[in-house]
């Protein structure tokens, strides 16, 4: 239960970090908050020859508004997402969902970038990135590029990042006007990995008709699952019970692909998805209505 030996590198700037990664991409791991990596190292499931510790790079930790987007540094602690007033105002879905990420002791250390790059299908942040249509900025020693969240998650614990790239920034568009939100999950105990969870966004026009909707699920496949058909069903319609029922049925029966695990069967996950979808859509629609 102790990590195997490794060489430790501690860059103080992004520049230094990408150069280190370029030189050692074959045998180095990046250390962000370490709340998933260090347990894996303690179990010796992972034994990197080198760790490049990003925790001393001050320029990777910030939350700021920029025009009509929020910019969040990849090393921003999850706990800061929970309490930041700009995030609460501009992307309230993220504020609401942040307390569901593990326990406070984990959020105090864990980072937004670390969780996104870890790409755990049961994690909250990848789901939120899809729901909020985030863009993710990656950098290597010679260039930087933006990747849409929809193109970023490439499967279980797999992303579109190249081995020499570091995720440096998360760009979150402000949620559009008259957009209601909801985040719900079911877990055996608070802070445990959820059996099922959903992020819902609903935008209503002046007449109460839905112009835009989003339903994204965690622990429902090999990555965050965007139920596009169910969301499409809601567009142009007034959200009523039969419609919400149909959307929840479509998403939970056709669009998600849960595997089941030691705590739950796949069938029960589908059942939870259906129930949570209905509740989340109602809450999101109600909030959107209140914002009229």
């Amino acid at each position, binding site marked *: 239960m102790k990590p195997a030996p490794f*060489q430790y590198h501690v860059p103080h700037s992004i520049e230094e970090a990408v150069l280190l990664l370029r030189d050692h991409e074959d045998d180095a791991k990046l250390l962000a908050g370490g709340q998933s990596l260090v347990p894996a190292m*303690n179990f010796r499931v992972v034994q990197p020859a080198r760790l490049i510790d990003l925790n001393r790079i001050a320029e990777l930790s910030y939350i700021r508004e920029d025009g009509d987007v929020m910019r969040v540094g990849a090393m921003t602690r999850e706990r800061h997402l929970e309490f930041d007033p700009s995030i609460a105002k501009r992307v309230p879905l993220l504020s609401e969902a942040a307390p569901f990420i593990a326990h406070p002791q984990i959020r105090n250390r864990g980072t937004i970038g670390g969780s996104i790059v870890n790409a755990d299908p049961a994690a909250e942040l990848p789901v939120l990135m899809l729901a909020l249509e985030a863009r993710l900025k990656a950098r290597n020693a010679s260039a930087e590029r933006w990747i849409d969240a929809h193109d970023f998650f490439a499967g279980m614990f797999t992303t579109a990042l190249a081995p020499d790239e570091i995720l440096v920034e998360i760009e979150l568009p402000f949620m559009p006007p008259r957009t209601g939100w909801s985040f719900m999950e079911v877990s055996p105990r608070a802070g445990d990995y959820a059996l099922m969870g959903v992020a819902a966004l609903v935008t209503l026009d002046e007449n109460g008709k839905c112009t835009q909707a989003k339903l994204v699920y965690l622990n429902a496949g090999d990555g965050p699952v965007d139920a596009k058909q169910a969301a499409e069903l809601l567009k142009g319609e007034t959200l009523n019970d039969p419609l919400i029922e149909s959307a929840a049925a479509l998403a939970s029966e056709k669009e998600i692909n849960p595997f089941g695990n030691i705590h739950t069967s796949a069938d029960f996950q589908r059942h939870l998805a259906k129930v949570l979808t209905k509740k989340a859509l109602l809450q999101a629609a109600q909030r959107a209505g209140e914002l009229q």
Partner: protein
Amino acid sequence: MTQSISITVTVNEKKYKRDVEPRLLLSDFLRHELGLTGTHVGCEHGVCGACTILFDGESMRSCLIFAVQADGHNIMTVEGLATPVSSPHLYPDGGREAGLHPIQQAFWEAHGLQCGYCTPGILMTLVPFLKRNPDPTEDEIRHALSGNLCRCTGYQHIVDAVKLAAEKMR
């Protein structure tokens, strides 16, 4: 060759300088290098909460942080709670029941511990929790305790102890 890195860490307001191997966990550093065995080691993968400490004032798992990462930082362990000399602000009226922190005192009075293995981690979880939320509901208390596992006391007395602690500190 094994890398050795010189670090200076402030623990319970005292500065320590040591040479450490990068793979040394902060929990083991506290226990084996500094002899501060109040921080307990349970699962070593961030689930049980026994090793919870304060890192720059916020609760964290010391088994998920390397000692080298604490270089220049401020750590508080359970040993730092019952040190009235260095925490006079906690005892403005000079009343120091056995030098215990009010949370410790409440755990004693409400029977909030049995074997005590999980207690240091729980106490360190509660310090920032009660600071942020001085008048918590039972639900909030149970939620706050969800990251600390207890296998023998039963949570009821722990919840009672937290209520009592909150009362004492208000």
